[in-house]
């Protein structure tokens, strides 16, 4: 599965390129709009083309991500996918309760994290050792909060609440408790 760090890298490149382009455009416009010159009418065809471009851009983004980001279709259809492993986790009083001290996962396994809150709204996220995020979801009390994820490379991850639940929730971190191993036993 494509790693989320690759997707983030792609997004960084795309957005940076866009930012530089739009700033250059505005700089050019600000300079030219103060200079004398012929102000030809902008034809409606250009306007309609721009509208069409925005429509295509806005809608196609979601189709492109559906076919290129593997966790998107997996998440949307997770109810029909049988996981290789399920971890039932509960949260109460700003504390995660794990089913075991470490959550051990084998490579290429599809793992369902089923997290239940007994009081407040929390978040549930897995983070790499460089603090970057692998994924996250919200944990809402009174509702089913589950996320399916496929791990295809070895790693050690930290669980952290990704939602504010009052100052007491700032330290809701369980360091290095998710271990993905690719060694065959």
């Amino acid at each position, binding site marked *: 599965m494509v790693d*989320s760090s690759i*997707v*983030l890298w792609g*997004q*960084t490149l795309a*957005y940076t390129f*866009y*930012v530089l382009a739009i*700033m250059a455009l*505005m700089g050019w*416009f*600000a300079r030219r*709009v*103060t*200079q*004398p*010159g012929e*102000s030809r009418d*902008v034809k*409606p065809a250009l*306007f309609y083309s*721009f*509208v069409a471009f*925005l429509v295509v*851009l*806005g*809608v196609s*983004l*979601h189709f492109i*991500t559906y076919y290129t980001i593997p*966790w*998107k279709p997996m*998440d*949307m259809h997770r109810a029909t996918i049988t996981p290789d492993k399920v971890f039932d986790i509960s949260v109460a009083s700003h504390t995660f309760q794990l089913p075991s001290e470490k959550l051990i996962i084998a490579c290429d396994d599809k793992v369902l994290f089923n997290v239940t809150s007994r*009081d407040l*709204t929390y*978040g549930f*996220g897995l983070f790499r050792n*460089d*603090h*970057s995020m*692998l*994924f*996250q*979801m*919200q944990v*809402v*009390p*009174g*509702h*089913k*909060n*589950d996320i399916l994820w496929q791990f295809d490379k070895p790693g050690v991850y930290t669980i952290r609440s*990704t*939602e*504010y639940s*009052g*100052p*007491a929730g*700032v330290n809701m971190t369980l360091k290095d408790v998710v271990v993905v191993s690719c060694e065959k036993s």
Partner: protein
Amino acid sequence: MSFIHTLVNGEQESFKPATLTPMQKMILRFVVVGLVYYGFAVVEGMIMRLYEITPIPTVPTQQFFAIMTAHPLVGIFGSTYAIVFGTFLFLVPFLMKKPLWSIPLANWTCGLLAVGTFTFWFAGFLSEYAPLYTLYWPLPADFTQFSLWGGTFFIVGIALVMVGTVLFVVNIFKTISYTPAGWAKQPAGALIGSALGLSGLQAFFSKNKKEHLVSLPVAAIARGTVDTALNAGIILFTGVLILVYMVAALLGHDLRHSAVDALLYKNWFWWGLDLIADGLVLIFVAGTWYLLATLITGKKLYMENFARAALFVEMVVSWTVWSHHLMSDQAQPGILKTVSGEMVTSFELITQGLAFFITLVTLWSARPLKMTHPLKFLLGGLLGFALAVPAGIMQADLGLNRILHNTQWIIGPHVHVAVLVGLTMTLYSAIYLLFPLVTNGAKLYSEKLAVFHFWAHLLGGIGMGAFMGMAGLQGMLRRSLYVNGEFNGYMILAALSGALLLFAFLAFFFNIVMSLGLEGVLGIFTPSRLDTKEPLPAN
């Protein structure tokens, strides 16, 4: 002329409060209140920027989150609402060439915004009430973490702001539709229909094309005001719900938190909050761009009918996009996530893109233009939304939201760039443009300070958003603390950019005070000597 003399009497004594009409005093009061609270928000923002580098020993963690709770509310209600409401209460009668329905009601709105904002800010500061503005149920009623009394006064403050907001809504729609004394009977229904776009919608399916009864900027104000009204209703209802739990607790009864469904509450709250973020802000801003572009150029707006239709679409879109805030809520129905969260949200790219294009073409049609302060701030505002809207569209995708939700990306390149660069620079453009009009020709103290204001604000706003965004892409969460310096490189750069924003505001504030003089500023708050309902003096 000495510095002290100018400080007291203003630049060349050109500002004379005694010559101001009640309408001019009304808008200036709103602007002063708005700028003072903007100052609050900037200082709070700077404290938080420093805290994100290393916790400040004299500020407890709970106070840090109390500041974070009050900060966006002070910025939105105390500052932006005040400036926007004051400006629109002046502009609607000015553009329609009829008196405001009620000047006293407008002054009440100003007072309620000022008092309400101070009430919730002070309650939050004293009691360290910190459930954050999202108020995810049952957090605001978690009295093991938060003070009951502090929370009660906090909610009362918000309620006062909302009452002021309701008075604004009434005043705007009454002004559009009422018949002033001595006038021929006004077609109230047709005026409201035109303002809201209903007559335009009807004309779209009819061969009989009628002229619009209200101008485009007034239509934009009316449509944004619909969202303002709906939002006030949601926030008032939510406040009452929280107050019920608080009052019960004060009387010694603990109500059952599970009586309110947390996900339903979240949907309800975000539906209401999005009426601001994705509703009235975008509609008001687009309308203001159109007005500024036509006033700066003296030309007709390019593709005016499309602009009008886009404002109507934006209003409808703003009622149906809230689900993009719940993409990481796994219990949220998938159909809402894809239709409301992804697809309808994409329309914001289209409607804001059109507003951007139409404004630029209108400006272009009048070249060469002089690079005045209103023009340069308008271009800054356009750039701000051109940066922030695509950032928002990206995070409103089910795939990308999984790795962006609740990170600094959301609050940096999207929220702060939209608010500080897009919205605030648009408001500054309007302030610089209207300044001579509403002060009867007061002279600006320093052109150089205004230029510094522009560059420091633009670079500070974009810089802060960019460095927060870079930290977000590296996994840094919002509404959190990293006490071991994990993201200090980005946070130091964001704080330096924040400092630029602070200096920009100080330069602007100093420039305005020196232009009006302290006596002039005080004179704004005394009753007008002119007995007129006209926006401007007769001569």
